[in-house]
């Protein structure tokens, strides 16, 4: 008998979607907004999944996570720009053949920079939260400035490949193709993460380390080494999220990481520190809430996610699926 599934948080996503249906009125608009919200949520999940493990494993507050998002997006502009013939093709397979290497290169670059970030910025301040906040924010500012030096300060367009543009019509509802792609990529990342965490020894160590890193060390495993691996993987995932986010926005700016940072932290707090399942639910809630309120009451769009976090924390003070006891 495995741990019984805590189903209540799972209900939150459909519950939120159904609750707003009467306010939106039109089912087709509701469907469009819901798909957009799920796509946005999946991209945020990709970005946040690594950060929540970093926080859970080593109690590290990395406010510089956003720099990997921007880095991934800017790297993608270069790769996709060089593959203009492929992105300009109307054939979806040629588009995917261009986007896939862009994602892989972005992940590799973000992962490599993440390795250096951990070594020179995070490692000296293990266990010191205030210093972590200050130095990682400083790291992000430096990272942004370096991006400006390399790519310039101006906004750079990141157009969707030809085959991913446009929408599919489901009745009266228009569902953008790219949003479906984003949901599928997000689901693949979640499946891969879930498999790694539940079916491999490394995943077992990560789950154990999030709960009690000292005991993991006493069993003979080097938690620091594990943490570096998770940090690099988390940075790479942020790079992937940056590519997805850049394509979602169809443009990139050096500050894009900082702009998303707030949402990411809301997501990992809602989800419960160290929980990837919780991060998925948190990200979907945040994505849906942003789209619904953006349509219904645009002036409270930003506030709505903070209000959502407050409500969740009143219900479950440690997030929907708390893992790390801090």
């Amino acid at each position, binding site marked *: *008998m*495995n*741990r019984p599934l805590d189903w209540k948080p799972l209900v939150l996503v459909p519950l939120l979607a159904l609750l707003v249906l009467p306010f939106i009125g039109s089912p087709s608009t509701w469907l469009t907004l819901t798909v957009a919200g799920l796509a946005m949520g999946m991209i945020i999940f990709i970005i946040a999944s690594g950060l929540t493990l970093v926080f859970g494993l080593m109690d590290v507050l990395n406010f510089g996570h956003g720099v990997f998002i921007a880095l991934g997006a800017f790297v993608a502009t270069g790769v996709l720009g060089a593959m203009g013939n492929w992105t300009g093709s109307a054939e979806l397979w040629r588009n995917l053949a261009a986007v896939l290497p862009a994602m892989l290169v972005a992940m590799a670059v973000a992962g490599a920079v993440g390795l250096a970030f951990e070594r020179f910025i995070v490692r000296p301040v293990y266990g010191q939260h205030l210093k972590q906040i200050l130095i990682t924010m400083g790291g992000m500012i430096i990272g942004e400035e370096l991006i400006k030096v390399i790519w310039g300060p101006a906004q750079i367009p990141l157009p969707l490949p030809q085959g991913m543009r446009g929408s599919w019509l489901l009745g009266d509802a228009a569902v953008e193709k790219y949003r479906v792609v984003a949901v599928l990529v997000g689901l693949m990342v979640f499946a891969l993460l879930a498999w790694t965490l539940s079916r491999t*020894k490394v995943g*077992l*160590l990560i*789950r*154990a380390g999030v*709960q*009690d890193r*000292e*005991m*993991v*060390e*006493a*069993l*003979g*495993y*080097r*938690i620091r080494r594990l943490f570096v691996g998770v940090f690099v993987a988390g940075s790479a995932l942020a790079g992937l999220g940056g590519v997805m986010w850049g394509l979602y926005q169809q443009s990139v700016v050096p500050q894009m990481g900082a702009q998303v940072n707030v949402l990411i932290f809301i997501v990992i707090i809602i989800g419960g520190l160290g929980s990837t399942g919780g991060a998925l639910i948190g990200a979907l809630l945040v994505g849906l809430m942003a789209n619904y309120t953006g349509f219904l009451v645009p002036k409270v769009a930003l506030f709505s996610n903070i209000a959502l976090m407050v409500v969740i924390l009143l219900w479950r003070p440690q997030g929907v699926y708390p*893992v790390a006891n801090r």
Partner: protein
Amino acid sequence: MSMVLMTATGLSVGASSPLVGREARAAASAGALLELKGVHTHIGAYHILHGVDLTVPKGQLTMLLGRNGAGKTTTLRTIMGLWQASQGQIAFDGRDITRMHTPQIAHLNIAYVPENMGIFADLTVKENMLLAARKAGNAAQMDQARLQWIFRLFPAVEKFWNHPAGKLSGGQKQMVAVARAMAEPRDLLIIDEPSKGLAPAIIHNMIEAFDQLKQSGVTLLLVEQNIHFAQRLGDTVAVMDNGRVVHAGSMAALAEDEALQRKLLGLSL
């Protein structure tokens, strides 16, 4: 009398103890698996260990006794590198481990069960056991014969194999914690209060388990508050007070000397 016993049991104590001489210590060290010399530990501003001298003889079960706050748990954590010794030396099988990191120390074939048991509550009993089996990638790769032996000693481990460890009772968790320390052959088992919160029947199983481990040549160092448990199992004993070992000798000798028990522990066995 004390000197003779200590030579026979191979246990030595620090220079602060009037009970030990240099010759006895040298003889004892010959069979030592673990040896602490003048170990001091600071935790933040607090000076907890004030020069602990302790020798754990190879193949024996050593009980570390003492009042609450005497420094027993700190001693175990310092041995494991979870807290760094600020002064002194810790040697395991003749090798200096004072500055080693915890995983390196564990890789010397030392298993540790902390006072809070260190159970991963969100993992199943199987996953907890698998973590201790460092060479196994999955449960099927664990030493099945050893696993069956553990199941016989602690039936609850098999019964709740696929249950989340956090859902078990305190006694069942304690069994899992000790069973986890036995998941692979180790040279030294360090266990902080193994009998804590256990029912008498389970304590009997645990005594049997430790007896069998001892017979197989495993060395054990246990912190214990249950004096009867300590008396039943211990070959040698070290008593701590105020961050020092104030007495060391054979458990049998301590059990026979009521005046010494009252002096050291405030009670008789």
